[in-house]
Structures are given as C-alpha cells and as structure tokens.
C-alpha cells in the first residue's frame, strides 16, 4: 500500500476489500453512516484500540482480536452484541494480501457472533508513523430490561469463577515474538464470549453480579480493579486456577506469572454463592467454558487486597503492576 499517491483508485480498492470481507446490507449502501433499529431497554456502547505485535499469531490475528475484544466488552455488561464499526490506520508499504486476510477474519469473526460491521474508515500513513496496522473499533449492543452488572454489586462471600485456562493469549504472542518454541504450540484463546455469557445468564440471572474479560494485566489486574470498585478483597486458591502446562512452562521461562498475562477469550464472573455451582455447571457445558473453575471468594477487607491463600491460613498479595513486571528481589 502506498501513501498519498494512487488517490481514488487506492481508496476504492481498499473499500471494496472491506465490503467484500464484511458483506452486509448496511455497507452495501455505501453511505457515510448506517442507520439501524433501536432495541427496547438499554443500549451498550464500547470502544477500543488494537495494537499488537506480531499482527499474526497462532489462533488469530489483529482483526479477529479486534472483533472478539469489542464484542466481549459489550457482552460483559450482559448485553447482546449487535453492531461494530472499525477504523484502520495502515502503514505505507503494508501488504494488501495481509490486509485482505485480516479483513476476512474480521468478517468471519463478526458473522460467527451474529454481529455486523456497519461503519468503517481507513487511513494510510507514512512509513514509520504506524507499526503495520492499528485498528480502532466501537461496539453497540442491547441490554435486556432491568439487567445491571457492576463491580459495586459484589458482596462478601461471592464466588469467583473463571471461564477457562489463563494466559493463553499473552503467552502465544510472546512465544511468537521471541521465537521460543516448546513442544506444544500455544494458541491464543481469542474468542467471542456472547454465547457463553448467554448460558451463564440463563443459569444465574441476577445472581451474576459482575463480569469482566481479563485482558491486559490478566486476572490480577481485573480482580484488583473489581476490588477497588467494590471495596472488597479477594481470596484465591492457587491450585484451583486453570493454567495449561505449556503456558505455565513458558511463563516460567519468561519469569512471568500467568495471572498477570493477557487473555482474549476468557471471563471472570463474581457470582452469588448459592448460584455459583449452577453457573459453573452451565459454563462447563459450553465449549468456551469447558475448563471453567471456581477459584476463590470475595472477602471483607479494608485494604481491598487480592490475595492468594497460602498454607497455615496465610495469604500472598496478588498485586497489579504499573507496567512491566520489574524485579523486586534485592
């Protein structure tokens, strides 16, 4: 792709590439905006930017990641995802074939979740002004009447459920970036969680107090966030936290803790204790929740500590990090 030169021809080439990949009635009308019907109840909107290196990784690429991530941010409210928009910042020299692959996987990811990408934009910038490709997305969904998930709903004694093994996405990216190959290839967990959330709500209803997708910063960052919003602490059982053996080994090599590593197809749910088993069973029955687990509980704690239980009734703090994992041992 080239910047500036080419003008109209280039713009048309790109837009037809996206139209073909996303193929829906809204884009087909070629307007600068798309009109859609408004559902009853509440609407939900989210927006996110995707910057990932490498752009292609085992289990997906930046395109499928953007669609899944935006859908997940919508569905963590309990809403049904409906429409997406996508904006592309493309570095001059980017391969058109790569762009096509990415667009195709976005279209596929959206179709798979029953959502439509109904608005978009592309800009090509000079070499060095972007790292290959950046994608910004906005997602819109409809929330059933009366449904309201929020961190401040968490109560002492609630259970903490995770939908599956942790750290897969971050470790897949890192292994690819550092070219470290263990016997088993680690695949990103990038997935849309709308359907899993639907079965959870069917099983738990209002007993589900909070849902979050533990993306950047991993489970540790997400639980610390919820702790601060809810004013509660967490007490987790390390042995109950699902981590794949290959992910654990790679994390060990890099000196990372899987609970600090990003996920792109997992969720954490804080669930009322009397409904936790039912919700967990529903999760396990779903393909995206096969490895779901009850990993701990919320506790009263004026310090809002997220702690990992140790033997003899003690606990170790699971911290959030301000950036990278810096060494601490002097």
């Amino acid at each position: 792709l080239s910047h500036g030169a080419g003008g109209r021809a280039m713009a048309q080439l790109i837009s037809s590439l996206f139209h073909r990949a996303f193929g829906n009635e809204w884009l087909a009308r070629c307007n600068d905006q798309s009109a859609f019907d408004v559902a009853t109840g509440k609407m939900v909107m989210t927006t996110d930017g995707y910057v990932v290196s490498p752009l292609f990784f085992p289990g997906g690429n930046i395109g499928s990641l953007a669609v899944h991530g935006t859908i997940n941010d919508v569905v963590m409210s309990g809403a049904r995802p409906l429409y997406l928009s996508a904006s592309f910042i493309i570095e001059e020299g980017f391969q058109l074939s790569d762009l096509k692959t990415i667009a195709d996987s976005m279209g596929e990811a959206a179709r798979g979740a029953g959502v439509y990408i109904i608005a978009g934009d592309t800009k090509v910038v000079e070499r060095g002004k972007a790292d290959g490709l950046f994608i910004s997305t906005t997602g819109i969904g409809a929330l059933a009447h009366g449904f309201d998930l929020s961190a401040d709903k968490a109560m002492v004694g609630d259970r903490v459920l995770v939908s599956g093994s942790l750290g897969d996405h971050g470790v897949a990216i890192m292994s690819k970036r550092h070219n470290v190959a263990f016997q088993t290839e680690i695949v990103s967990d990038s997935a849309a969680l709308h359907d899993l959330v639907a079965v959870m709500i069917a099983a738990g209803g209002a007993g589900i107090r909070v849902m979050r997708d533990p993306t950047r910063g991993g489970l540790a960052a997400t639980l610390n966030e919820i702790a601060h919003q809810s004013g509660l602490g967490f007490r987790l059982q390390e042995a109950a936290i699902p981590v794949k053996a290959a992910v654990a080994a790679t994390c060990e090599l890099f000196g990372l803790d899987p609970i600090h590593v990003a996920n792109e197809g997992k969720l954490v749910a804080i669930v009322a204790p009397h409904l936790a088993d039912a919700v967990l069973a529903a999760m396990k029955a779903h393909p995206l929740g096969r490895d779901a687990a009850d990993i701990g509980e919320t506790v009263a704690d004026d310090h809002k500590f997220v702690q990992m239980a140790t033997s003899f009734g003690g606990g170790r703090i699971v911290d959030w990090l301000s950036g990278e994992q810096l060494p601490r041992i002097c």
Partner: protein
Amino acid sequence: MSAATICDRTRLRVRVSGAVQGVGFRPYVYGLATRYGLAGFVANGPEGVTIEVEGGRASEFLATLPLEAPPLARIDHICVQETAALATENFSIGASEGGKLSTHIIADAATCGQCLSELFDPENRHYLYPFISCSHCGPRYTIAGRLPYDRHNTVMKAFRLCAACTAEYADPASRRFHAEAIACPECGPRLSHGINAIVAAIAGGQVVAIKGLGGYQLLCDARNQDAVQRLRSRKQRRQKPFAVMLGSIECVNEIAEANALELALLESAARPIVLLTSRKCLAPAIAPGLSRVGVMLPVAPLHHLIFHALRSTGAWIAEPSPVIVVTSANPCGEPLLIDNTQALRRLEAIADLVVTHDRDIVTRADDSVVAVVAGRSQFIRRARGYAPEPIQLAQSVPPVLAVGGALKSTVTITRDNQAFVSQHIGDLNTPEGIRVFEGTIQHLTSILDVEPVVIAHDLHPDMASTRFAQAGGRALIAIQHHHAHAAAVIAEHGHAGPALALVLDGHGVGSDAGNWGGELLLCEGAMCRRIGHLAPLQMPGGDRAAREPWRMASAILHWLGRGNEIARRFAAQQQAQYISALLDQSGGATTTSAGRLFDAVAALLGIVSWQSYEGEAAIKLEALVRRTAILEAGWTIDGGVLSLRPLFARLIADDIDAAGGAGLFHGTFAAACVDLVMRSARTTGVNTVVLSGGCFQNAILMDEIWRGCCAAGLTPLVPQRVPPNDGGLSFGQAWIAALQIAEQSSASEGRG
C-alpha cells in the same frame, strides 16, 4: 556554671534528656540526692527527666549525675538553670508530667544478673517466676502503647500490683522503684503451661512454640536431627539456617568459635543472635552447607527456666550442654505472630505444644542478628534490643518518614537530630506484612509525636511501600535504591563532604529505569551521580533469575560464547534447553547486579542452582572459601564499567573445584572492586569510600575490600548502626530526603 556560684540560696533545675525513662533513672537520682543531703524532687517530663535540687553539695551531685547512671540509661544532654532556693526539707519523686513528648521508649533488655539470681533463689518471692524484671531489664518497646512510659500506658495495666509489689514499686531504694513491668507470681502474668511440660516436649524431640519477648518462637532440641527436620518440614523451610540458643556463655565454645567482641555481643543487654564459626557438632539440618551458625543466649526469664530445667532432666546427662533451636514463629514469610488467638490457630499444625501467657505484646520484635565483620559488629537484622534506639544525625532535620523497600523492610522517622529506625518488619508481600508495616508507621509516629512533612520512598513503582507513600497525601521524594544504601552509611558516620560509594547489592531500579545492583556512586549532600558499575549481564526471567542461579550462570555462558554448554551443565533444569532462545533475543532485561554474580558463580561451580531462601547461593559460596586468590588480569575496567569476563572464563574451566573457584571469585572480585574505586578516587580526588549493599553481609568480601581500600590510602566507611542490606534503606532514604528539603529551603531563602 561553676561550683563556686552554687550556694545555699540557689536551687538548680536540671533537665536530662536521652534514654532516661523506664530505666530506673528517678530512683538513681533519688539515691544520689539523698547521698548528698539535698532537698528537691525528680520527675519524668516530656523532655526527659526534670530534677530540682538545693543544698550545699549540689555541685557534687551534678558532677556525679552522668557518671553512675543505671545500665540501660543513655544521657544525651544535661541542661542546668539556677532559681531561688525554696528552702524545702526533703527530696521526693514526682509523678510524670504531660505535655508534648520529645522523649522516647527504649529497647527491651535481657534479664539482668540481679533478677537472674532472684529467679533461682528459693527464698525470693520471684523464685522461678517467668516474668521477673526490674528497671535494669525486661520488656519496654514491646509492651508500651504510648508515652510517657508509665505502667498505665503499657500492657501491664491489666495486672493490679499486689501489696509486696506495690511496696517495691513505691520504694525509692528498690531496683523495682517505678519499674513499670514488674510482677510476681501473686499478681502478675501467668504461663499457660508448666516449665516441666515444655522441657519434656523439647527433650522428647517435639516442636514447642513459646511466647517470647517480641513474639512467638519455635523451639526444638538442636542436637536432635529428627526434631530439627520435623520443624523444617512443618515450617516448610527447606534449607534456611536456624539460630540456636545456649544456656550460658560458658557453653559457646563447645559449639562455635567466638572472639572477645563476639562474646561481648552475645552477653550484651540486647542479646542478639551472633553469627559464629560453627564447630559442626549440632544437628546437620540446623545450617545445611554453611560454615557459620547463629547463636544466642537466653533473653527472657522463660528461656533461663527452660535451660535450668533441661540441665536437671535425665535426658541431658549423657550429653554435653543443652542447645535448642529458636526461630521466629512466622508462617510463610509473614510477620512474627504476637497474638494468642492467632498463634493457637496458626501454629497448631507446626508446634506440638503452644505455650502462651497473658502479657500482651504491643510491638513485635524479631531477634536481632549481628556478625563481626572486618573486626566490627555489623547488623544482618536490627530488631529486638536495638529498636527504637535513635541514631544521631549530624544536624537537626525536618520530620521525614521513609518507608524503605519491599523485603527486610524497616521504616525510619526523623525528629530533630535523631533518626528512629523501626525494628525489622519483614517482607511486604503478604497482607499481614503490610498491616504490620502500616501499624509500625502509625505507632512510631504517635510515640514520637511528629507529623512528617515528607515521605521518602524507593524509585520502584510497584513496591507496597511506594504505593503506601503515594496514597499518603503528603509531599513525596523518590530515592534511588543504591543511593539510599550509600546514604545510610554516610548518615550514621555523620560524614560531610563528598564520598565515593561502592554499593554491591541485589537489585534496585536505577535512575535510568534500568536494573542496577553493582554501582559506584559519587555522593555529596543530597546529590548522587553514577560514575561506575558492573558490566551489564542478561537476566533471563527477571526475578526468576534471582531465585534460580542457573539462569544467571546461563547468561554468563552465553556471554562467553559457550551457550551450547547450558543444556549439558544444567541438565536437571527443564528450562535449560529453551533459555538459549531467550538469551539470543536482543533487548531483553539486563542487570548490573553484584548479587546475581554470586548466584551465577555458585551455579557455575555446581553449588546451588535453585535457591530455597534469599541469599542461599551467595552464603553457600562464601562458606566454601578456604583462602582467597586473585586471578591476574581477571578483569577489565573501561569508562567506569567493570567487566569480570576473564575471571568467568577461568571459573568455568574443568580443572577448577568448587572451593578453589569460590576462593578465586571472592579474591578477584574484591581486588577488581578496589581497583575500580582507586581509579575513581584518583580522578575525583575523593578518598572516602562508603561500602554498602546486601553483598557486604559477606564477611570475606567486606574484609578484603575494606583492607584493599585501606592499603590504597582510602578511608572506608562501613555500615554499623543499620544493616548493609535493605533493612538500612529507610534510614538512607530519610537522610537524603531531609538534606533535599534543607537544600531547597536554603536555596529559596537565598533567592528571597
């Protein structure tokens, strides 16, 4: 004031400041005044002790006052004023005055000789009483809630004195006059179990928890390998050495070598654990792979009673003197347990017998640990017996709170020209650890009655101490880790003017955000400049590399172009085959850490590949040294960067054994450091060299570098009042922050 001016018509008002409360100072003054036939009074006050005397021999009184002070007293300042005589008749002891507090609580002291003889005197009413104490001994800091140090401000307020104790408490001639912690079997605290039950359990190889002066301790027979192993497996402590307690100073020689200074430290009122060269006659599980053993003498009457009973039990007759393991009861790296309910619950699975009593502990204090290094005593851990004794500063400074680091944490608060360094708090990675950290700050601030104007903290963004500082709503000063290590030594020595600082340490965030740890700094006032450092080495896996020395060894092999040997040398490590891929990457983390070099060498020599406790690799490497040697041309220095590449190339040769390699590494590394310092001394013209950082707990390294610096005509300054490790950070931070504030305010005055 000259003696001639004191006549019958004048009355002297004398104010004494220092450690003068809770040490028997008022009865001492009473006795002295009575001896010289003076009238007047003595009272505790906010500034220390206030005395008024009148009479013909007042000048003699004044001259004697500092000379015969009680053993635990420390006089900082005596201020004398003349007033008109009141013509009063007798001398009395007044109650404590209120007002602003500027005195402080002194440290706890081991049972004194007089109490000890009473303890074993069948005629004495304190016979075999585990809570005997007087104004020369017993708990202070650990039982005091607030100031002034009066019984009603301590946990002793729960015990109403009986008639006999009341009489002693009120008798100015008694050693127990106003001794706030006094008690007797009639009216005082009680132990939950008899001494015989404790002793039977220990002799039977069981693990016993007792409530010591500063917190719960775990005890077992140190000559019984099974008992020690049982304690290890229950405490989940695989290799970290245990300290042992002996019944008396006469027994020390049986199990360890000790010189005069070491014996004096063992017998001092602080009763620290002293690291001594072991004769290796105890259970091998006590200090696996180490040449030194931590030894201490009984601290509290309970310890004495246990040894007394052990000696009279049949089980010990065939053996030499009894030796028991004494270790802090702190499950999983949490702070020492002090609360009875907690202890009973959490020690249930560790101890066969938990012995409690009903004298509460307000402030926990671990046993202090010291070692004699290069002929001086040096702290490894500063806690019971020393905290909260202040360290004198070269000048008065604004009140500063410094919160230290993340491991072996302490906090420091400055007041006027004194710095109060807290007892060792421990690691801040457990909720309990952080609660104790916050509680210590709160308690110290309140007993010192100061409002810090600034909080000083480490540059590391993710330390719990940094987070605490940032949430504190006060002005912040972030201080580089190794600068703080250096400043701690500069401050305790009251050194003014520039100093070079060789900081050999594990890890600290550098002012360039890098991983530092082997630094040569040029310090002056609050200023610090990095003028040299160790050659950066890859650190594959961050903190993992600190726990797994084989990783640092791999980084060295990779650096030497011998990465193909990693998998073979560390075949037992599952990750060894993958680490080369990580090391091949450019842009990975590097470190200039000195501590990681010790780890690497220990792994290269096949001594320790995985550490089960912090410092294990370095301590075991040091323990193997029989004599040091220097490899000629074993290092290069280029632009202040010290590279030991030739030394490493030699250390991985096949013909080097572990002991030889350990000696060669220690000797060469020390010589290289001295070379680095000497060159900088020449270019900067600065001849004072501070030696600090955790690596200086290594006695061989400290000794060699200290002697090397002296031989080069330099003046080395070494840490003596606070540990060279992170336990000294808060003190250094406080000093830099105080200097910064002073420099800023003088600069703004200059402008104004």
